[in-house]
């Protein structure tokens, strides 16, 4: 978790477009230092001693804040599980800047890939499309669909950056597409914006109002600095706006969009949706898969309606268009509806209290909660079962496990 060092390195060397001739002028020894800026990962303490920046605490406090903001709305909230998300990627001139290593666009592509996989993992019932902005024009790179591979492949092929960026064009395009989708779906746009300005053909305020009317939730992740118009867009449409500090922060921010958002009240009506649960084909059986158009041995899924073969789930059947999922996918969506309550922080005096002698170890990993110097370290407590956990377990329980070991063991015993 010592991402701080890496973070600094990446955020470090900052030059502009004329990066190349900059490095040309420097001596070799200088270059290593300008690239690393190792001095920035140090900070002075009260007595003037140097010490590495305490990223652990920073990281955890960020996580706590996120958790709090997520659970600030009531615990048992209806979530929009069927999402139609357009990812808008800004491929303007600014995206080729190299303040992220190797370049902004490479970092974006890498994390969009992880995001798409994570997104389908968490929202097996949802669909994604990709739009790019280049030379002031927005293009639809992939239509909205349920197959992660096709999106990722299409994106990786088109990563050249040039020209200006236009927020309005992108929003108009996405608005046109999202207006056609069924009413039970949640319309969302996630904009990854590198540029610091937008060159629009008309009044962007009108477009924002249009998006607001069609209930499109627009979120923006900026890569450089806070822009007023993006903030305004997010406020108006109920999305979130964040700016990435560095690569790891960017990853965090983009993955925050993977869990489903709270449902919009008007759309929260019961609805029936057609869905297929394909069977896994027997090992060794040979068939032509409909997605790659080539013969494959074993490990495929058969569409229950048209019997076409698909390589992986979730996807949409290429032949009959049925949404194909497996039951574990549905089960995976389930935990969004019943999240575990965030744990409360424990004050240090509590740990010292002789009455709670038992609770000196983390209930999860059984590690001692005390510092090496036998002083109470940071800890959290589950509000239901009152078990104590260390910070690492806290994150693990909330982000991966989705069950509280304390509560579960209580129920069994």
């Amino acid at each position, binding site marked *: 978790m010592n991402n701080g060092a890496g973070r600094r390195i990446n*955020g470090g060397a*900052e*030059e*502009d*477009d*004329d990066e190349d*001739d*900059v490095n040309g*002028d*420097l001596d070799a020894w200088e270059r290593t230092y300008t690239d690393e800026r190792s001095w920035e990962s140090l900070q002075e303490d009260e007595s003037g001693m140097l010490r590495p920046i305490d990223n652990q605490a920073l990281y955890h406090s960020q996580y706590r*804040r996120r958790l709090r903001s997520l659970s600030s709305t009531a615990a048992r909230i209806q979530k929009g599980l069927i999402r139609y998300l357009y990812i808008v990627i800004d491929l303007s001139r*600014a995206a080729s800047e190299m*303040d992220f290593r190797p370049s902004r666009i490479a970092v974006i592509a890498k994390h969009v890939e992880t995001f798409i996989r994570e997104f389908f993992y968490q929202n097996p019932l949802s669909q994604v499309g990709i739009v790019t902005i280049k030379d002031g024009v927005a293009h639809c790179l992939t239509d909205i669909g349920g197959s992660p591979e096709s999106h990722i492949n299409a994106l990786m092929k088109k990563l050249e950056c040039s020209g200006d960026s236009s*927020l309005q064009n992108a929003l108009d395009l996405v608005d046109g597409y999202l207006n056609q989708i069924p009413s039970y779906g949640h319309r969302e746009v996630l904009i990854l914006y590198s540029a*610091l*300005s*937008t*060159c*629009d053909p008309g*009044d*962007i*305020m009108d477009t924002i109002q249009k998006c607001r009317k069609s209930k499109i939730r627009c979120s923006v992740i*900026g890569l*450089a*600095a*806070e*822009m*007023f*118009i*993006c903030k305004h867009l997010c406020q108006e449409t109920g999305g979130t706006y*964040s*700016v*990435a*500090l560095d690569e790891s922060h960017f990853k965090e921010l983009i993955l925050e969009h993977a869990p489903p958002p709270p449902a919009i009240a008007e759309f929260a009506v019961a609805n029936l949706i057609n869905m297929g649960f394909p069977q896994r084909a027997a090992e060794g059986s040979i068939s032509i898969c409909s997605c790659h158009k080539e013969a494959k041995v074993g490990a495929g899924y058969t569409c229950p309606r048209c019997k076409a073969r698909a390589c992986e789930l979730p996807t949409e059947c290429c032949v009959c268009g049925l949404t194909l999922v497996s039951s574990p996918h549905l089960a995976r969506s389930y935990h969004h509806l019943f999240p575990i309550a965030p744990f409360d922080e424990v004050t240090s005096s509590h740990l010292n209290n002789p009455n709670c002698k038992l609770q000196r170890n983390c209930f999860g990993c059984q590690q001692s909660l005390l510092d090496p110097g036998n002083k109470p370290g940071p800890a959290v407590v589950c509000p239901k079962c009152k078990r104590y956990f260390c910070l690492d377990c806290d994150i693990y329980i909330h982000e991966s496990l989705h069950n509280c070991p304390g509560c579960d063991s209580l129920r069994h015993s």
Partner: protein
Amino acid sequence: MKFHIEDVTVYFPYDHIYPEQYSYMIELKRTLDAKGHCLLEMPTGTGKTIALLSLITSYCLSKPQSPMKLIYCTRTVHEMEKTLAELKILHNYQIKHLGPQARILAIGLSSRKNLCVNPTVVAAKNRDSVDAGCRKLTASWVRALAAENPDVSTCEFFENYEKAASAAVLPPRVYTLQELRASGKEKGWCPYFLARHMVQLANVVVYSYQYLLDPKVARIISKEMQKESVVVFDEAHNIDNVCIEALSVSVRRQTLEGATRNLSRISQEIDRFKATDASILRAEYNRLVEGLALRGNLPITDNWLSNPALPDDILKEAVPGNIRRAEHFLHVLRRLVQYLSGRLDTENVEKESPVGFVASLSSHAGIDQKTLKFCYDRLHSLMLTLEITDTDEFLHIQTICDFATLVGTYGRGFSIIIEPFDDRMPHIPDPVLQLSCHDASLAIKPVFDRFQSVVITSGTLSPIDLYPRLLNFHPVVSRSFTMSLTRDCICPMVLTRGSSCSDQLPVSTKFDMRSDPGVVRNYGKLLLEMVSVVPDGIVCFFVSYSYMDGIIDTWNDSGILKEIMQHKLVFIETQDVVETTLALDNYRRACDCGRGAVFFLLPERERNFSHFNEITWNSHVCCRGKVAEGIDFDRHYGRLVIMIGVPFQYTLSKILLARLEYLRDTFQIKEGDFLTFDALRQAAQCVGRVIRSKADYGMMIFADKRYSRHDKRSKLPSWILSHLQDANLNLSTDMALHIAREFLKKMAQPYDKTGSSDKKTLLSQEELEKLGDGSMHEMSY
């Protein structure tokens, strides 16, 4: 919330208070206790106004026996409205807690232009014509005429107000200008005269600096304010200039020509009166013999201007014999105008002291000092006698008489400078004769003498020890407060040289360096780099018009401007007010819609004096009044301010040289000290506009190597200095760029508004009570 400062219970209308507001109130309270004057510097955006209002009104409430009054002076109508709105919130809160006994009367007084409700009068285009339009309807002789002849029109609002007589009073509450107009309309009373009447009764009066500092106006409006009043000058960083302007006169060719026209018109009027009704002139003569002081009982509408800062004894003297008769007075004025136009014909720059000028005037034109002294009053009296109402036509002769009176009255602190042409345009003859005041303390002295406490406050009053010397007074408290912030939301930097990968050439607008192409290119590069990393709005200040023109020209030729335009739109301030207002409007739109923009601006001083004042005062005239009111570049309208160069005054200006000499001789202020002080005050004023509240953030770049020197830098306000890290004192372009990127990213992160426990920036009532008086002091530093 409600809390105690020593023996005073302070009513504060909000649930939380900033620690610096609290310490500000403590200092203010001490000043009031000591019945002295004070200087307080606190950054904008920390709630200075409400702290002031809430403490002073609470102080009055706690001492009901003393007839204390608050006189609050603002610079613009917009600020006046804001102050009244704050006061209203406060007043409602006090009434809620104390009941009807807390009721006060608070009004704002402004010019007729802003208060008139008569549709025919207020339609006029500027302030002077509104004044004249009003007089045409309300002068005593017009009304007398109307009484006989119903065809003569009068103002119904004024008539109603006169009819109501002493019944015309406003019930106590807080009136904004808007509400004053509304209630005037509703009752049919003229709001302007009502306000002028109510000023004597009100507990809180909010009006412009001029009403106290300009002796012509002050003697009418503010003469009945009681000694126990507390006077507040808000945003007073330029107060010395306001004082000086109030006593300076400049005479041009046009003025003299206009004055000659006015004189012939007056002489026609005199002939007409002689033919019809000579007795009026005779009556005036008799009145003048008895002395000016008896003139006191004129009707309210007739006294429009009064004598500029005359010592009281003059008023008790009789007007000298040689100007008592109207014709004689006209002769004197004609000779004066002739003499002045002779002086204007000079080829050389001339500088003279008032004493020398009067001596030469008396030998050449035969006008002695005493006659000069009375010119202004004599003209006033003559115009009243001749029943002239279109006073806006007579501004020229008024200027001449104003000049004459000032020259005749003051022997020291002034000088007369005649310049045959503007230094910057030597080919165009534009002779100007200026009577310039060098001593700011002359105009403000009556205020200090008269009122118990005078509070001078602003966001930028550094170095705070210079103001008492300039204004010649002894403050009992002078303090500078810093802002308590939850995060470091301002980022000042001193940029001293170009990019470390190119020439590293030092940048400066020093005279010998400013035209160096390398320096110009480095400034261009700086801006170019910055537009590519800073979102939304950037404001860029230049030291002068000529410098701005030159540098933009060069940038245009070398293509830098074009490259800048790829990132952001460029707007430039021009000397045309309407054009600049339009540019500002579009600048804001560009920032709003995400296109991003750069605004090239000049420091306040560089603008023609009163140029922007004019916009703000006459904000109703401009169709885009909303844009013009107070040009702040806060939030996304200004994420970065670049101050290119040190905005020194034009040091070859004769007026400045004369003033520097005077300051050195009289107050022992060194020339260099004053120039640096003035330049840094301008710079701080420019960059200070980037942040207007604690939630905001912004960067400031001082792009000149001279800022890194301690003697310059240390004169910046402490709230900027405290954020200026040593590491940021000597930056090159690329280092600044790096810092900017990091800063902008850091500031874009969500943050906790109330501050963590060790860095408390908002105090609730309980927390405030917990803090003993002792510990409070540590916090404020």
